[in-house]
């Protein structure tokens, strides 16, 4: 046994050792077994280095080198949230806050994972793969809370908001919420998730989603990641979609100093569909990574992906997207496009789209483009009297349109537009954009 680690994987493993008896579900043998398995997986993998192919472009050294503390239990009741009229579940520093949430008359169930845990045997861990994804293993080892959403068959769940806030703390808290969403046959739900925190706060937000979409159910999942600019946001989403079901994911990746938005979708039943769209807005000092893995595991499924990355200042953007078509997945229709716009000479974009195809009767394609704002277009707008900064804003917005318009849900689209223009204004002021 070596000295106690204060940073890195060792620190988290030690924390698990120390908290073993106190973590939620400590009295439930199946939970304990699951945590031990996750701990073993995390011990084996550690924080992935760039030598791991899936992490080739994203360096977790800063996470690895940070001394994280525990998230303190709910201290802040001063949080004033504007009402939106939607139902919502609020998490503060990784813990569910019933007092801040509005969850009346839903027609479906929304619970805190910490509370619902005894009833989740067989469901918790059904889709996550901690043995393959180290961060899911870390989450599996240390999760304390999360949201459990269960929509019964045929129920149209409407819009639910999931707000996740970090408070200012000098302890650099790390929290690992585990969210479960299950839509029974023919059910539908729109979940709009906002993750945010104070600009100066350093924390690690490491959520894992396990999503099950049953036959002919439809889940719209909108995510607005606007964490504080010193935060680490490492998120892993797993979704399994059954016959005729649809999973729509839209992610705005705009906050955090280092953000990884990793999505694994399995189209497990025939005629299932998946749309994944996203916008990454990366400003000076930020690193944003979107990594998708689409597993076509049944015939006649369709998938569509459009991702756009805008980079300003000294920043780095990453897109990795793999489409796997298994032998059984005949008649697959898979499409993926990722595009990046560089607004600064100090920005870097790394893109790795990938096709892995084992069925012959398929239509699969991907495309990638990288470039700067079109000088002719810019000149045209300016020749019509539009000031340079505004002209750029117009062109950037046009660049993003395709990804934003692909979002089927109006509520998500509206939330997104607001976030985009807000980001843009901040960039204009910060002067992070290079004049072409």
């Amino acid at each position, binding site marked *: 046994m070596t000295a106690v680690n204060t940073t890195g994987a060792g620190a988290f493993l030690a924390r698990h050792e120390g908290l073993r008896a106190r973590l939620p579900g400590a009295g439930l043998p199946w939970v304990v077994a699951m945590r031990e398995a996750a701990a073993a997986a995390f011990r084996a993998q550690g924080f992935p280095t760039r030598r791991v*192919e899936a992490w080739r*472009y994203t360096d977790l050294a800063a996470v690895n080198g940070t001394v994280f503390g525990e998230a303190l239990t709910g201290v802040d009741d001063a949080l004033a949230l504007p009402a939106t009229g939607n139902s919502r579940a609020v998490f503060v520093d990784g813990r569910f806050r019933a007092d801040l949430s509005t969850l009346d008359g839903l027609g479906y169930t929304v619970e805190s994972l910490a509370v619902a845990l005894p009833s989740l045997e067989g469901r918790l861990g059904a889709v996550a793969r901690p043995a393959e994804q180290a961060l899911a293993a870390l989450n599996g080892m240390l999760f304390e809370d999360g949201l459990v959403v269960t929509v019964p068959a045929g129920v149209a769940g409407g819009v639910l908001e999931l707000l996740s806030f970090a408070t200012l703390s000098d302890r650099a808290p790390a929290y690992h919420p585990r969210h479960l969403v299950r839509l029974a046959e023919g059910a539908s739900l729109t979940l709009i998730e906002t993750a945010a925190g104070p600009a100066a706060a350093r924390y690690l937000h490491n959520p894992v989603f396990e999503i099950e979409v049953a036959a002919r159910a439809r889940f719209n999942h909108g995510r607005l990641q606007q964490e504080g600019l010193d935060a680490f946001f490492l998120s892993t989403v797993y979704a399994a979609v059954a016959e005729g079901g649809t999973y729509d994911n839209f992610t705005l990746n705009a906050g955090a100093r280092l953000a990884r938005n990793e999505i694994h979708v399995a189209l497990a039943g025939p005629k299932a569909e998946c749309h994944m769209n996203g916008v990454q807005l990366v400003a000076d000092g930020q690193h944003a990574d979107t990594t998708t893995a689409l597993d076509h595991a049944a015939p006649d499924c369709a998938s569509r992906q459009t991702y756009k990355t805008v980079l300003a200042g000294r920043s780095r953007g990453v897109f990795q997207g793999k489409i796997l078509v298994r*032998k059984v997945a*005949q008649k697959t229709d898979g499409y993926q496009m990722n595009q*990046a716009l*560089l*607004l*600064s*000479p100090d*920005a*870097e*974009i*790394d*893109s*790795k*789209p*990938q*096709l*892995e*195809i*084992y*069925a*012959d*009767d*398929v*239509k*699969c*394609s*991907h*495309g*990638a*483009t*990288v*470039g*700067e704002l079109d000088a002719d277009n810019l000149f045209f707008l300016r020749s019509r009297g539009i000031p340079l900064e505004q002209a750029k804003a117009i062109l950037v917005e046009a660049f993003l349109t395709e990804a934003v318009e692909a979002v089927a849900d109006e509520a998500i689209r509206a939330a997104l537009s607001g976030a985009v223009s807000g980001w843009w204004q901040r960039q204009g002021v910060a002067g992070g954009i*290079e004049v072409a």
Partner: protein
Amino acid sequence: MPAVTETLETVQSVTEGGYKWGFETDIEMEFAPKGLNEDIVRFISAKKNEPAWLLEWRLKAFAMWKKMEEPSWAAVSYPKIDYQDAYYYAAPTQKVKPKSLDEVDPELLKTYAKLGIPLKEQAILAGVEGAGDTPADGGRMPIAVDAVFDSVSVATSYKERLAKDGIIFCAISEAVQEHPELVRQYLGTVVPQADNYFAALNSAVFTDGSFVYIPKGVRCPMELSTYFRINAKSTGQFERTLIIADEGSTVSYLEGCTAPQRDENQLHAAVVELVALDDATIKYSTVQNWYPGDAEGRGGIYNFVTKRADCRGARSKVSWTQVETGSAITWKYPSCILRGDDSVGEFYSVAITNNRQQADTGTKMFHIGKNTRSTIVSKGISAGRGQNTYRGLVKISPKAAGARNFTQCDSLLIGDECGAHTVPYIENRCMSAKVEHEATTSRIAEDQLFYCRQRGLSEEDAVGLIVNGFCREVLKELPMEFAVEAQKLLQISLEGSVG
């Protein structure tokens, strides 16, 4: 029977008969002892009568190789290679270069005839003095040929004629003797000894290969061609090719390969280095037809090759064209370092995998100079149980202002037992660069097949026609003679597979 099902079945029913180059030539060979150690490296160097610096260079490479690990990132799988169980030197026992055709081993001549390469120049190739000074075929542009047989270059044709323009085209072992200053100046400057595992191995034990130098301002008057053949059993082939195009020069170089049918796997680990100075152009075309193994995946060549071009000069241009139909495993990424401003890199590739062949091939384009441009067109065809991967890197450095890349990767699947994979990497650190990448995967459409058959084409011909059409953008980049050969080869590779 439905046409598509039939295609599948026929693809699966490929037989050994598909490989038409699987003969073995029975000629006297000289071998170094099996195995690999410093003594073997010294033996090879001594056999080639090499200067001390080259021996040192080899030994340094060997020392580095011993510390390296065989790469495992490619999407190919094969049993562990026992590097001690192969011969690293095998040469026809022919001491002096022949002065007339009669002096040439008749078995060797038969081999040339069977190769069917543009060997109307056989006499010339066999080294008959003066034969190269008149066009071989009624004024048709001749092709100068260097043939590498297992470990040594056996003959180079048209040397005298080329020498009139100051062009050097000879075996690299000969260049070491005749032009040591050029070899020493450029060898290993594009692919350093420790570049990768197989390049290090090659640097230690390379036995022969071609050397080309085109002087300033010279447009090489004919195609230069090297024909590689692995013949002896349990022999690795480690040829090394070095081509230098000096300022303002132009050259087109062709490379062809075959090997006999054998149950065991044989290793081919070549290194090709190209250097293009200011305003120089090199066109490098390969038709790779190493023995692919039989329908069950027994035997076949492991083709682990490092090819790289250094576009050192401004406005230089290197164009790689490859048609890869052979080998059990292909691991190959002909690359361009676009260092000179306005330099251009191109990569055109057709790769077919049938039966149990595996190919992991593509290119790397490193944009360093300003306004550098690259084009990548890759056509992958998977049939039988073949696995075909395009792997490519486009990397743009911060200084490569105005850099452009366009990449098109298309995959065609024939049957549902095969795989087609596309793994492009784009790394851009330059704001004004523009990169476009497109990839598609499809199969031969039922309506295309029916349309052709309704016009009277057999299913096999229809598939051949459609596949050739699919590859057209690449095939048109090949020099005329090679294009015809490549088209036939495509058909043959799928033949026995279809129809």
